[in-house]
């Protein structure tokens, strides 16, 4: 009995996760026949039963949002996809063990940069996630990662930049030259998990000094 190799139907089944939005993605055959359909199942590691993800049964797109189903940060998860092509050939592939806490990427913070005459203030907006506490309260990254820090950076010129690391979300760079352009960045860092967001960047100009005019 020769079993046909159908591995070409399905590749790279994995979670793509940012701030705990957990999207399952996969690739199909390069010249994937339009009539190939995909069905998604998921489970908590240690559980016996695979559960079907409603809304991702016999779909033709190559992604499925499993954020709600994988929202318990103390759990580990698996997902798997079954592909069936027009000729009835099928293939099933599983993800690696997925840990939301370890595997999620951190999005850049949302920041307001406020220029003044001789300073620039940077205010990071609360980094809310899709995760909710038992009481329904929406959690921020700070609630989830106790060691979260913000890295504030301001480039003064080609050779000199100022850099500060803070737990607080607000920081002000003082002693700046009025009416001058500066490039600021803010990153989120989680040292214990070696996580770092991409930087939020702002180009901002200090106000002119009108005191003597």
């Amino acid at each position, binding site marked *: 009995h020769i079993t046909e190799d159908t591995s070409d139907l399905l590749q790279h089944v994995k979670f793509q996760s940012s701030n705990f939005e957990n999207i399952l993605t996969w690739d199909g055959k390069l010249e994937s026949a339009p009539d190939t359909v995909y069905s998604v199942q998921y489970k908590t*590691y*240690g559980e016996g039963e695979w559960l079907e993800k409603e809304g991702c049964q016999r779909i033709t797109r190559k992604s499925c949002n499993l954020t709600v189903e994988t929202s318990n940060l103390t759990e*580990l998860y698996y997902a798997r996809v079954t592909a069936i092509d027009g000729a009835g050939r099928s293939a099933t592939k599983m993800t690696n*063990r997925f840990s939301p806490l370890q595997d999620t990427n951190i999005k850049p913070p949302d920041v307001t940069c406020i220029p003044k005459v001789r300073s620039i203030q940077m205010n990071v907006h609360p980094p809310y996630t899709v995760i909710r506490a038992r009481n329904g309260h929406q959690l921020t990254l700070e609630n989830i990662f106790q060691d979260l820090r913000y890295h504030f950076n301001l480039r003064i010129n080609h050779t000199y930049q100022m850099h500060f690391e803070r737990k607080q979300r607000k920081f002000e760079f003082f002693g700046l030259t009025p009416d001058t352009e500066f490039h600021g960045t803010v990153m989120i860092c989680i040292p214990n*998990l*070696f996580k770092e967001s991409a930087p939020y960047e702002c180009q901002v100009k200090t106000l002119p000094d009108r005191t003597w005019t």
Partner: protein
Amino acid sequence: QEFQFGPCQVDGIVLQKLWQAFWAMKDIVQAQDNITSVRLLRKEVLQNVSETESCHLLHALLRFYVNTVFKNYHDKAVEFGILKSFSTLANNFFVIVSKLQASQEKMFSTRESARRRFLLFYRAFKQLDREAAVTKAFGEMDILLRWMEKFNQL
């Protein structure tokens, strides 16, 4: 870093180093474990552990890891080219066990409840084929590290 497992204090653990070692091999190791329906370090073993129990439980678990899991996984670690990470974790676990040894011997109060928790883990381990059990236990070290993290005296 300093860790306080109930009455047992352990200094000199750099948990980030252990995390780094584990992550370097996580996907390789966990991909070898295809029994997705069994979790050895499940909630009943590690959840709601009292401070005083934690020393006994950690000592029992780490001693098992040193004497059984690492011992039987060494050849695989060589085979998969992950010996460096393997050694980092094995050596650190060995050091922690020896540091816990003295203090946990002096405590008797919560030994029995900690032993019951350990037996939950041990029975699940014994129910699996030996090689599969060792591979699974090795792949669950992130669960153990996550639990140990809670006792870090930041």
